[in-house]
């Protein structure tokens, strides 16, 4: 197994389909022709490497200029591994989320909920040598969207991961256990039933910082490598 082994195909039943009518925005945005499956080459097997010097970490979303954001303080931590359980060290994770009131500090968000001057909602962390990551934030609020009458997004945090190659790029959302909105959310429900609960974090008392913040564990799994290396070029 080395850095020139291609990545295995993603198992059927993992990702949602882009043609998901219950999520209205997909209607005119999903391609209608089937994807053309290509063999992975250096373009797909290699990928960007980010250095913390050029992309500085932002591991505490819960304060700005030393002032605390409103909301329930949380610690989110976990690992990034591949399907075979191999840790993915030194990989960059980008994070963004709504504030505790369910409002993004973003020009497009016009939801009638307050902005928090001490919360921007953007983070960036790198995994350590064992694939571990950790950041502090506040629990994001739910917010309405206009997908269907009385539609509300469950509490969620957005993540962007790169992993070892272009083919491992992943954009996803982490949810919270016990959220009653999950069963009503077309974006969450678009994930095949057998894979859906992978997106729900676990409350973890051992991550909780007493007198300070609740802890949630969320582990990311990226595509593993096939056993056979790419033929030499």
């Amino acid at each position, binding site marked *: 197994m080395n850095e020139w082994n291609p990545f295995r195909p*993603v198992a059927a039943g*993992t*990702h*949602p*389909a*882009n043609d*998901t009518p219950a*999520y209205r*925005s*997909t*209607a*005119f*945005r*999903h*391609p*209608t*022709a089937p*994807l*053309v*499956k*290509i*063999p*992975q*080459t*250096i*373009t*797909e097997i*290699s990928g*960007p*490497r980010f*250095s913390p010097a*050029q992309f500085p970490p932002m591991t505490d979303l819960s304060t700005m200029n030393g002032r605390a954001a409103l909301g329930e303080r949380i610690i989110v931590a976990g690992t990034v*591994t591949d*399907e*075979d359980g191999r840790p993915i060290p030194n990989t960059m994770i980008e994070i*963004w989320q*709504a504030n505790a009131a369910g409002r*993004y*500090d*973003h020009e*497009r*968000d016009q939801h009638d909920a307050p902005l928090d001057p001490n919360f921007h909602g953007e983070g960036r962390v790198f995994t350590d040598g064992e694939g571990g990551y950790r950041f502090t934030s506040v629990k994001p609020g739910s917010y309405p969207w206009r997908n269907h009458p009385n539609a509300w997004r469950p509490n969620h945090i*957005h993540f*962007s991961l790169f992993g070892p190659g*272009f083919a491992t*790029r*992943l*954009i*996803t*959302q982490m949810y919270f256990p016990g959220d009653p909105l999950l069963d009503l959310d077309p*974006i969450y429900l678009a*994930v095949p039933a*057998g894979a859906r609960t*992978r*997106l729900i974090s676990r409350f973890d008392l051992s991550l909780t910082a007493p007198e300070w913040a609740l802890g949630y564990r969320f582990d990311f*799994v*990226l*595509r593993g490598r096939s056993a056979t290396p790419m*033929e030499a*070029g």
Partner: protein
Amino acid sequence: MTGVTPSQTIGPYWHLIGHAEWADLTRFGARGERITLSGRILDGEGLPVTDAAVEIWQADPPADERFPGYGRSATDAQGGFRFTTIKPGPVPGRGNALQAPHLALTLMARGLLVGLVTRVYFAGEALNETDPVLAMIEPAPRRATLVAAPDGPGAWRLDIRLQGRDETVFLEV
């Protein structure tokens, strides 16, 4: 074996929008033939996709501390994206094949539950005729949806259509 984490949409509110400089892959001092790549993203009704994240990755020239090989551009009110980068050269393919100069391009947006992947080639490159990935695309006229056209000195242009007539060919990698 543990199951892969499923994909979700990037949504309309991605904060990564705050880093416009990421669209310039030469910002760390890269040397080479500097080019711009621009285009528009259009949906199945021909309307601009104004909230997309467009990303490029290129294996050539090899990434180093001066050249990240990777860039991200937000689309504007016309659905337009624009990168500044170094023009790639050919790279090895499988076996003894040589691939024509190309960039990998990923597109993420509200309404896309999984990001779309395609490639950008450059019109007029002799290797386009024998490129193993382009050759897999049938019917052959659809290959043109991956080939950027010259748009002035050092400038290249490729529009991407998500759906319908002249739909861009998207790849499974």
